[in-house]
């Protein structure tokens, strides 16, 4: 009896069993595949190009990746797409969420419109972009017909197409998060700042932004991870063999065209490592900010 109570004090009782489904889920669908992939990445496939060039040591696949500029550059290509997309989404969501606080007519409609893109998925978004911004799409026809440009502007099958796609599908997510963080800031704080002589910009800069920054850090991390795994748009609205050959394409190529699963796993691990580095840097910056309670009911 005494043991049961002592364990309960530490949080160990029958309600822990509620965790079992989640744990099983995570272990089966994440931990196991991850560990399997990790150990696979250290076992270069016999007969593959890697083994022929670099031998069969555990780091052969990694060596091959970084030695080949065609593969190595995918990291930078993906960062060049995901960092600006995430940054834009986070920064753009702030003024819009700021304006959307409080009650006003049509709020629900506007919120729905802003959030709908997330329900469409990347494939539909990419198709829509091709129709709208392609060489014979509405936008270019309008620009050419009104004489603003001489010939169609190349906005698809290149870097810009993928960037737009990432922004469209990633913005609703960043917006919802930012809106929720903003709502967690006590509105009387800004009123108090106003009575102390702070204009709207000063209120934003000294009160709202510092309290919002930790939330924005998290929003950036999540938006970045979402954007870094870009795949369908890089192929459909991008230039998958050149400008937008992102790291996920390299992994796909290794797995399903070369059937070199070790290499593919190694690429996936490198992908994870890059994301971890970026997130680590952002969270490190965030840990130096005030992250306590901000009042709520905003």
């Amino acid at each position, binding site marked *: 009896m005494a043991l049961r109570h002592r364990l309960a004090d530490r949080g160990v009782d029958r309600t822990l069993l509620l965790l079992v489904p989640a744990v099983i889920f995570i272990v089966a669908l994440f931990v196991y595949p991850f560990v399997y992939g990790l150990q696979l990445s250290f076992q270069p496939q016999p007969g593959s190009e890697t083994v022929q060039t670099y031998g069969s040591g555990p780091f052969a696949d990694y060596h091959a990746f970084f030695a080949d500029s065609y593969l190595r550059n995918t990291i930078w290509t993906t960062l060049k797409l995901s960092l600006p997309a995430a940054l834009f989404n986070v920064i753009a969501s702030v003024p819009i969420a700021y304006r959307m606080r409080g009650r006003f007519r049509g709020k629900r409609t506007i919120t729905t419109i802003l959030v709908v893109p997330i329900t469409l998925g990347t494939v539909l978004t990419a198709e829509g972009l091709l129709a709208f911004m392609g060489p014979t799409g509405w936008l270019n026809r309008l620009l050419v017909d009104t004489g603003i440009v001489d010939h169609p502007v190349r906005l698809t099958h290149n870097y810009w197409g993928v960037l737009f796609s990432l922004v469209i599908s990633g913005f609703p997510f960043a917006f919802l998060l930012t809106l929720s963080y903003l709502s967690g800031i006590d509105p009387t704080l800004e*009123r108090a*700042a106003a009575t102390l002589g702070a204009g709207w910009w000063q209120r934003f800069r000294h009160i709202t932004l510092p309290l919002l920054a930790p939330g924005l850090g998290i929003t950036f991390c999540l938006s970045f991870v979402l954007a870094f795994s870009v795949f369908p748009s890089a192929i459909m609205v991008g230039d998958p063999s050149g400008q937008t050959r992102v790291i996920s394409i390299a992994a796909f190529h290794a797995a399903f065209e070369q059937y070199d699963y070790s290499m593919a796993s190694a690429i996936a691990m490198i992908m994870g490592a890059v994301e971890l580095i970026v997130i680590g840097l952002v969270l490190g910056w965030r840990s130096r900010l005030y992250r306590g309670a901000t009042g709520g009911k905003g």
Partner: protein
Amino acid sequence: MSTRISELRLDGVSRGFGGVLALDGLDLTIEGGEFVALLGPSGCGKSTALNCLAGLLPLSGGAIWLDERRVDTVPPEQRGFGMVFQNYALFPHMSVRANIGFGLRMAHVAKAEARKRVDEALELVQLGDHAAKFPGQLSGGQQQRVAIARAIVLAPPLVLMDEPLSNLDAKLRLEMRTEIKRIHQTLGLTTVYVTHDQEEALSLADRLVLLREGRVQQIGTPEEVYAEPANRFVAGFMGYRNELELPVTSVADKTVVLGDLTGTRREDIGEVAVAVIRPEDFTVGDGPNALEVDVEVVEYQGREQAIQARTAAGDPLHVRATSRLAPGDRVTVSVPPERVLVFAADSPAAPREVA
């Protein structure tokens, strides 16, 4: 930078919201250095009036004049009024020193001067040792004192306080009340103070403004409002707990007779009138206006007892007495006619729930 104003005038100030008038034509002139309390039950418009003064709510009608300068059209950040909020609204990410100095920073006051003034403010509210702490590390009373220091450090022409003590426990409330009084006596800043606690208003204010459903019921000094309430509502709110509705037997210029009760006439009355009496004005024993009552509930309050009794007619009667009574006793209580105030029966009634 002490800007002592000579007069703050509210001229027919009204504020409506969705067809409902939260504030209806408030006329009030406040002299420089005065401490005015806005008193009333929830929903009477006192907080609305304060927020209108601060500029956080626009007026639906009327105007506010500060020394013949119109201020209701000026945004809050330019009015220069200090405000203390009910939930303190301290900036959680700034230290106590930074919180108090925020207004000075917005006004671009030189660093050395600002530091000196913040130190003075900290001294005034006795928080000198806590300057480097953050609001999250302070107790409720300390947070309240930081909020007050933050509002007064600029020596604003007007200080607004929105029920600053309601979130504190009883003992702290009494201590802080004295603090606020002391600070007002030291600095002499014109203050408008909102509260629903009549005791607080009586002890702090130079003048009280009683509001009910957006309309002014009475404006007067604590003595005037306490001893000479203008109507039944004010009387009920200021502690005249007993309200006996009785038919009028005879009316004279200054006195009214209602059956066995003789009271002082306070306004024009009809055939039925209401006599209001303070529980503490009753004495147990024979005397003028003697009434026989049955004691029902006795509450121990130290030197006195709070007694609820019932008259022969079946009306409840609240009495405060120093004698030791017990439930079931039948006693005689009396009250002098000057302490029985008679109002018209249809005079605005006090709210069911009095704070």
